[in-house]
């Protein structure tokens, strides 16, 4: 359908055009093209952190918006995230080397008894896409698993996911334990999963229920900013 446009030569685009093309290529899930573009920007002496925020995070924000709005669905987002991952693999060692700022760290997992991880993985990918550091505990995570990890990792955020009405109450078990131990307010707790809603999130004492991965990213950014403001106040 677009044969005449097959001959986009990434290296011939100027910076602005290239970033725009990266937005498109992330949207279309083209991993090799993203890797090539990241390398081109590095050759052009872009800071790794600038490539991350302006090109990759910028592109994934559009993917996230269209996912939130029911325009893109899981298969497209998985492809986009996979392309993003290709770019990140190049940038990650360089980001550490250059001491790039840290956005925040989230420990996440699907709750005990629940093996659904598609939504959780999407949240992890989109959070990484937004520059967060992710520690993914996988599926079937019990209280000790969550609490040990947030402590050891020095996490800012705890994210819990459940896809079943039979497993979602376990989130309250985790939060109640945090309250008992007096550590609840040390962390931002985000919950998500198909059968949940805002009311459930409030009832169990989470900071927020996040409807989808895009909302999780927006909420995490907002709550991290609020936390920083409180700390400096």
């Amino acid at each position, binding site marked *: 359908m677009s044969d005449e446009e097959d001959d986009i030569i990434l290296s011939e685009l100027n910076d602005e055009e290239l970033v725009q093309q990266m937005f498109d290529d992330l949207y279309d899930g083209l991993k090799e093209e993203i890797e090539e573009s990241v390398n081109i920007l590095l050759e052009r002496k872009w800071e790794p952190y600038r490539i991350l925020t302006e090109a990759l995070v910028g592109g994934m924000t559009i993917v996230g918006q269209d996912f939130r709005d029911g325009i893109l669905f899981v298969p497209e987002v998985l492809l986009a995230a996979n392309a993003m991952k290709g770019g990140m693999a190049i940038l990650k060692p360089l980001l550490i080397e250059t001491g790039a700022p840290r956005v925040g760290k989230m420990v996440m997992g699907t709750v005990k008894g629940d093996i659904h991880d598609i939504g959780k993985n999407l949240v992890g990918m989109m959070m990484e896409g937004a520059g967060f550091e992710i520690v993914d505990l996988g599926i079937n995570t019990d209280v000790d698993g969550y609490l040990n990890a947030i402590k050891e990792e020095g996490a800012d955020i705890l994210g819990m996911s459940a896809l079943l009405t039979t497993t979602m109450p376990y989130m309250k078990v985790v939060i109640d334990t945090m309250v008992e131990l007096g550590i609840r307010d040390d962390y931002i707790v985000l919950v998500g999963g198909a059968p949940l809603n805002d009311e*459930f999130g409030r*009832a169990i004492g989470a900071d927020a229920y996040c409807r989808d991965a895009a909302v999780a990213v927006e909420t995490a950014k907002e709550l991290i900013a609020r936390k920083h403001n409180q700390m400096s106040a």
Partner: protein
Amino acid sequence: MTNLLSRLLTERDWLMTDGATGTTLFNMGLQSGDSPELWNADHPDRIATLYKGAVDAGSDIFLTNSFGGSAARLKLHDSQSRVRELNRLAAEIGREVADASGRDVVVAGSIGPTGEIMEPMGALTHASAVEMFHEQAEGLKEGGADVLWVETISAPEEYKAAAEAATLAGMPWCGTMSFDTAGRTMMGFTSADLSRLADRLDPAPVAFGANCGVGASDLLRTVLGFRAAGSEIPFIAKGNAGIPKYVDGHIHYDGTPELMARYAVMARDSGAKIIGGCCGTQPDHLRAMRKALEETPKGPAPSLEEIAAEIGGFSSDSDGTDGNAVAPRQNRRRGRK
């Protein structure tokens, strides 16, 4: 192929299936995180009570306690070696309850999703998905299930794999998807897409349809989508009793029996031949639904406005079948992938 479900579908205008399994077992003391399927061996009396609840409330069909009975799901409980046994027991207990009812009651062997993403997006191959579903199907068949009932599926690839497994087991089958994301499945599949897929499969499902998802109103919109797609295959409506709320440490669904009774009549008027509930639907809901289906004469299909007014609003403006859905951005390279 003659089977009890196909026969009943030709004899009756509508059939009522059951309600919630998970919600009901939870109320019986199932702990968050435990496998419901293990109860087929450990608490067969409670599983019989679950089935009887639906049968006594007037269900013509009930689903076995085997939703998470595939190796992929039982692995979580280190019980992947018990697939055959737990599925057989789920159906055996069901067979006894159905046979003792004194009327025609269909034992539908529930098969839920593997919880994994299939190739090429994910790691699960078609062959291993078929193998897992087939193993489960053989157990359900052995226990005396009349039909296999694949439910809560999101990906067409997984739906096809389950269909293939049913064929390998020599069993008639039904298959429903969960339309929980802007009126589509998580994978972006619409009601019209499923109707077309069901028509293409050989052997075709005895019935196809929707279960779970968001609330009863979204489910009715999906059923109207099936109707508009115009398949000859009967379709199934199995919606949740409202939206889950957290009350005193338990999940409670806000849909009343009266609301579900209205939903049942609207589902039938929209063309569904098999009508039931999903999460939150208790025997009281089923009794109200049965009564309403029997006492309310069949009317014209409701409009979306009528559904929204009586059952509640929709979770999204479009469900992807009305031509109003926003298409993905068309980038320069799109189409050359």
